């Protein structure tokens, strides 16, 4: 059963149409990677899923609730849709523990003790239990992003959206973050990941979605898309990326 279902999604900025009818779905427990050239609308599509961007057309169902409906309680729904950002967006004035526990306390109204215990568990899950008292500026980029993942995980969402989670990282720190994501996948977390990490997408994704020009050009199993791409646009994109990355 789909946790996230996007159909006919459109988004325009003025006269520029960024998304021209995107269809995709993410089933429970699936890791779906979205790949494609810069400006293909991947991040915009992702940001529409929790209404950080307002779609101009189409439908998004999250766990059966229509995200774009006028009557939806978006603040309620967003607790079920975690998000991890390219630039981490940790709160610099709060410790790692407070970064993770803030929404547990202020949104879910849990007691300080309960929220901090849950936050500590989430930090341990990303391997940063010992860094609970550190401020973001005292952490490496990879550690900051893992705190960002813990912040999303702690709310126990139905799905987590990853917006190029490793693009702002030094190459040697990328693997730490990807390992945390692989671990999440093994724990059964449903994930929609916009990424340029082709080897990660190839190895870890259940399905891969290739976007270009604001539409989904091709989607299928990682093996199908990477090893037997049907569309010429997919083939030329993978050829360019393969030669640049290896």
């Amino acid at each position, binding site marked *: 059963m789909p946790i996230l279902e996007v159909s006919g999604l459109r988004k325009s900025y003025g006269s520029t149409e960024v998304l021209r009818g995107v269809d995709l779905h993410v089933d429970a427990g699936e890791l779906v990677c979205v790949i494609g050239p810069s400006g293909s609308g991947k991040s915009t599509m992702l940001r529409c899923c*929790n209404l*950080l961007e307002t779609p101009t057309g189409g439908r998004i169902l999250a766990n059966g609730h229509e995200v774009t409906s006028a009557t939806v309680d978006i*603040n*309620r*729904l*967003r*607790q079920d*849709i*975690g*998000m991890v*950002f390219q*630039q981490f*967006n*940790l*709160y*610099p*004035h709060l410790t790692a523990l407070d970064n993770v526990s*803030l*929404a547990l306390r*202020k*949104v*879910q109204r849990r007691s300080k003790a309960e929220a901090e215990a849950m936050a500590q568990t989430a930090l341990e899950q990303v391997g940063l239990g010992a860094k609970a008292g550190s*401020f973001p*500026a005292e952490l490496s980029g990879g550690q900051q992003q893992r705190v960002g993942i813990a*912040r*999303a995980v702690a*709310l126990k969402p139905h799905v987590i959206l990853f917006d190029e989670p490793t693009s702002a990282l030094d190459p040697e720190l990328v693997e730490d973050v990807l390992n945390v994501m692989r671990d999440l996948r093994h724990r059964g977390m449903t994930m929609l990941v916009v990424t340029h990490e082709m080897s990660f997408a190839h190895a870890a994704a259940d399905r891969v979605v290739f976007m270009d020009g604001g539409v989904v050009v091709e989607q299928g199993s990682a093996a199908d898309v990477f090893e037997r791409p049907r569309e010429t646009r997919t083939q030329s994109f993978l050829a360019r990326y393969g030669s640049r990355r290896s």
Partner: protein
Amino acid sequence: MTGGDSGFFFTFFNLAVAKQYWPNIAAGMLVTVGVGIAVVVTGTVLGLWLAVVRALGRRALALPIVAFADIMRSLPPLVVLIVLYFGLPALGMPLSAFAVTWLSLSLVLAAYAEESIWAGICAVPSGQLEAARSTGMRWWQAMRWVVLPQALRRAVPPLTNRVISITKNTALGSVVALNEILNNAQGASSYAGNPTPLMMAAFAYLVVFLPLVVFSRWIEQRWQRR
């Protein structure tokens, strides 16, 4: 020349005059401190409130706030004070010298505080608000717990200087006969025919404001660290 020395002390540091008029100066200090605290509290709270309302991003709300801030920052505080003191009675709202000084300086401080805090809010990257909203926080929760703490860290150091210069403007209250330090000292030196009370006033201002200046220096250093 001993005669010249004693003449200088007789004129400016006359103990007999000081003894007679120090209660007036002390009473003035109380008024200055009272008005000063009232101005700081209402001015910064109003400024904070205006900055947050402006951050809502509604043009109809932002325009009057910007107009208010620009007008209040253009007018000399003395002019605001005099206009309100002589203008409000004409509108059927005669206020005491204390209330008018409080109101005028609060409005001026609010304008500057709004601008400082607004600049602080603008300096917080938009990703901060997005991250907070993505965890289900309402706009005002994200503002309260994520954006404002960062904005105020940026805004407070420049704001402390503004707070000091505007609270010192309580001396302008003497123009509308507020019994603060300067007004009482001027009255006393007229009665005494001796400027010693003015020297005492200068000393009284130091007693009131020097700790504030030192405190602001401490705040600037402490808040810039993180």
